């Protein structure tokens, strides 16, 4: 169970990060950067960091997919270790199960994405592939197994939820990288640029909370049992742990939105401000976003274990 939970958590986290990186570039960075004439002054450094991060996320998705497949095959066949899984079982899992079919599609998309990334193809196509990889996780989970007359609604809800996770928690990492790379060299243009990025990301986060509420309601309708079971079952207690982590995350997000972002905007608006006087609000923001990112990773870690624990409704 531990390996299954870990492999699953790492694969989900890497998939969210991969999609989040491209979403951040296309939805947050590109529109803001297009408004600046001197983009080349601060873009290359971020581009290098972003490229390394994309490579790490991509390779982690691929490696964790292989490990996850092996662990699932062992679990399905009742083998005690990966070494006990024979080729026939692997073939059956790959060719005759929903998990195997989706896994093959996911790995195919991931390999294609890697080639396109290497060739420097159009970012929108790569972004769509990264979201396809992420979305396919929905049908591999509970949504794909639900017996309901609702058709594809549970899967659609779960896909929406995963997309929302890529846009907000997934976007925290590139935001953090950008902030870390920029706040030391703060000329007026860079300050305004950073403040605009933060403003746009905050706006996106607010929209994403709406999407999370809508898709979460849908998930709740189809899956969640009685609230009382939260305290009396392992699943419920794990859920409460995840809830506590998420409450902290929201608190930090609110702190960024209502305190740090206005503070940064005020500092940037004063033309005469020196880099030294602008740095503190940016540093506070870096610390807060780093903490938020850490909490998001912890939430995904708990999701890995939730996936191996029967929910209270059963």
């Amino acid at each position, binding site marked *: 169970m531990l390996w299954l939970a870990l492999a699953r958590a790492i694969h989900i986290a890497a998939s969210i990060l991969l999609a989040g990186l491209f979403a951040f570039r296309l939805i947050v960075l590109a529109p803001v950067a297009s408004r600046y004439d001197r983009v080349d002054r601060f873009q290359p450094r971020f581009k290098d960091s972003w490229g390394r991060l994309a490579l790490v996320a991509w390779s982690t998705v691929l490696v964790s997919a292989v490990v996850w497949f092996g662990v699932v095959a062992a679990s399905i066949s009742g083998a005690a270790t990966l070494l006990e899984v024979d080729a026939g079982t692997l073939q059956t899992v790959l060719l005759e199960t929903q998990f195997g079919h989706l896994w093959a599609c996911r790995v195919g998309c991931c390999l294609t994405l890697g080639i396109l990334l290497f060739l420097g193809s159009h970012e929108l196509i790569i972004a769509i592939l990264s979201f396809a990889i992420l979305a396919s996780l929905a049908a591999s989970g509970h949504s794909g197994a639900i017996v309901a007359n609702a058709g594809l609604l549970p899967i659609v809800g779960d896909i929406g939820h995963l997309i929302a996770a890529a846009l907000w928690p997934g976007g925290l990492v590139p935001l953090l990288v950008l902030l870390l790379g920029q706040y030391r060299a703060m000329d007026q243009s860079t300050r305004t640029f950073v403040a605009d990025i933060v403003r746009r990301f905050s706006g996106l986060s607010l929209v994403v909370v709406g999407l999370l509420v809508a898709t979460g309601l849908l*998930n709740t309708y189809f899956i969640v049992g009685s609230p009382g079971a939260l305290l009396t079952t392992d699943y419920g207690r794990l859920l409460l742990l995840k809830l506590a982590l998420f409450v902290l995350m929201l608190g930090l997000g*609110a702190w960024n939105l209502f305190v740090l972002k206005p503070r940064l905007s005020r500092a940037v608006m004063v033309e005469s401000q020196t880099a030294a006087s602008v740095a503190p609000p940016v540093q506070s923001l870096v610390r807060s976003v780093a903490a938020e990112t850490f909490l998001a990773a912890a939430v995904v870690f708990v999701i890995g274990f939730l996936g191996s624990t029967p929910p209270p409704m059963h």
Partner: protein
Amino acid sequence: MNTKHLIIVLTISLIFVRIADAHAFLDHAEPKVGSTIHESPPQVTVWMTENLEPAFSKLQVFDAMGTELDSKDTKVNGNIMTVSLPKLAAGKYRVSWQVVAVDTHRTSGTFDFTIQ
């Protein structure tokens, strides 16, 4: 943050929770779990709480001595699993189900029925 805001945040957090994979369990069966019937059924059918993987799911019927009596022809359609039976004599029978749901989790269980 006042109480009202805290309640809103907690509610949103509960909604945000992505409840992941579950496990397939028995919803109901025919013959019914623990039932007593008067004629040998042509088959046993179980309805599970999740859709199943046919390649890794099976249904078996044993007599009181532990001898398997079903036709070993388990059929799976979505969340419904069926195995056919020869004509059974009066007695107590145990149905054993071992399944893998499409979310890849294994579960198993048993229930009895009696023919009078």
